[in-house]
């Protein structure tokens, strides 16, 4: 039986992991390569590297790091951040990314998903949607959650999947950073609308939140989080043990 995936997300700027990281036993907690290796050893099922660099210099450093990570860590790597064109897909795939996550780029250029799916296959194209409730409606936000696009989120996600996106990351702006659990009703709405794997993001504050997630919305394939892992509040090994105790199927690493 397929296992539920646990995915740490690393924000990288100018070659360093940003957001505080608090681990013992790591020489350099801000090194994406060391942190990636650490998570891989601890049983992470996949890693997401998010490039939050604004400059082209930073972008070059990011792809160098990606190469280094991909040559040392043999679990799936997803890359997001600043993906606006087929050339961006090409750039990160050549450096060892397995999947590319598109957010604002797909809002600006509606053809990007279909072009990428045709060229690299749907398995490679992840639509990442930042969603917030506005007047009782789910809305897609752009530019890291700053701009309301006015688009209704569920219909937009369905459109992206029809265009060839092979996976959906649902990032709830309403629950992000609040640490009170994932946005179960939003995830329910997305899972009812599409039949590709859905990854929950935004709101994880404890290991129990992952149990609640997979029990309440069993169609959800994976849970993604950043700060609770980075700050060492929840270890991936403990989380997997708790999930397993609650009869949620997970992968153990030896």
């Amino acid at each position, binding site marked *: 039986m397929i296992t539920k995936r646990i995915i740490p997300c690393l924000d990288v700027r100018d070659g360093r992991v940003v957001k505080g990281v608090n681990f013992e036993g790591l020489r350099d907690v801000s090194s994406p390569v060391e942190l990636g290796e650490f998570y891989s050893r601890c049983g992470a099922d996949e890693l997401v590297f998010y490039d939050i660099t604004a400059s082209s210099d930073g972008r070059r450093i990011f792809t160098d790091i990606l*190469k280094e990570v991909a040559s040392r860590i043999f679990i*799936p790597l997803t890359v997001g951040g600043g993906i606006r064109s087929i050339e961006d897909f090409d750039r990160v795939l050549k450096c060892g990314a397995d999947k590319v996550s598109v957010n604002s780029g797909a809002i600006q250029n509606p053809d990007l998903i279909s072009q990428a799916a045709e060229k690299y296959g749907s398995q490679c194209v992840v639509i990442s949607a930042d969603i917030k409730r506005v007047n009782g409606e789910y809305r897609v936000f752009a530019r890291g959650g700053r701009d309301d696009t006015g688009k209704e989120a569920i219909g937009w996600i369905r459109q992206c999947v029809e265009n060839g996106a092979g996976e959906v990351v649902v990032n709830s702006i309403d629950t992000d950073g609040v640490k009170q659990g994932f946005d179960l009703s939003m995830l329910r709405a997305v899972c009812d609308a599409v039949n590709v794997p859905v990854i929950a993001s935004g709101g994880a504050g404890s290991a129990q939140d992952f149990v609640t997630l997979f029990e309440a919305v069993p169609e959800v394939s994976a849970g993604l989080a950043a700060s609770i892992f980075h700050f060492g509040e929840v270890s991936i090994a403990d989380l997997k043990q708790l999930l397993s105790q609650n009869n949620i199927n997970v992968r153990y690493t030896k």
Partner: protein
Amino acid sequence: MIAIIDYGVGNLFSLSSSLKAVGADCAVTSSPEVIRQAEKLILPGVGAFGDAAEKLKKNGLDRLIKQEAENGKPLLGICLGMQLLFQKSYEFGEYEGLGLIEGEVVPMQGRLPGRLPIPHIGWNALELVGNPSLFRHIQNGDHVYFVHSFFADHCEKNLIAATEYGVRMTAAAARGSIVGCQFHPEKSGKTGLAILRAFCETEETA
């Protein structure tokens, strides 16, 4: 030397890195010369079956790979490269494969019970069938990483591993020294590296 066959389909960076990690001497190549000289071949690939089969045919690699494999050179197909080993595929039409292993590639759509997401993406357990030498370093039930929407069917005779995703489906198949894995060993952590190591080891050390 192990030749990773480059026919313009998919990303070979991780595959060559993982082979290096298990200490194998490998080269990414599309040269018939290099492929003939190689001790073992790996046929990778992601994307659509029809397009990939076409690309193999275009530079005559299809005949070369068939010839080398039939002459006993070990061949490992991965993901789409595994599906290409079969006789035909029904992915967006009907296409002929290399025909090295009996069976055909069919869509998950309409064959899975309930509303399981398609593609099948994630870590799933292997049910080993028989005692396949490729899996001599791993255990029954170990998890490996899958990404696919189509799977090989009607290949029971050559099945060496299955996985369960709504239905029991082919995870790996082999005929003699020709073997194919639906999952990605190069993305399957330690288990995947142990599988690649088994493929790369010479007969004497096996």
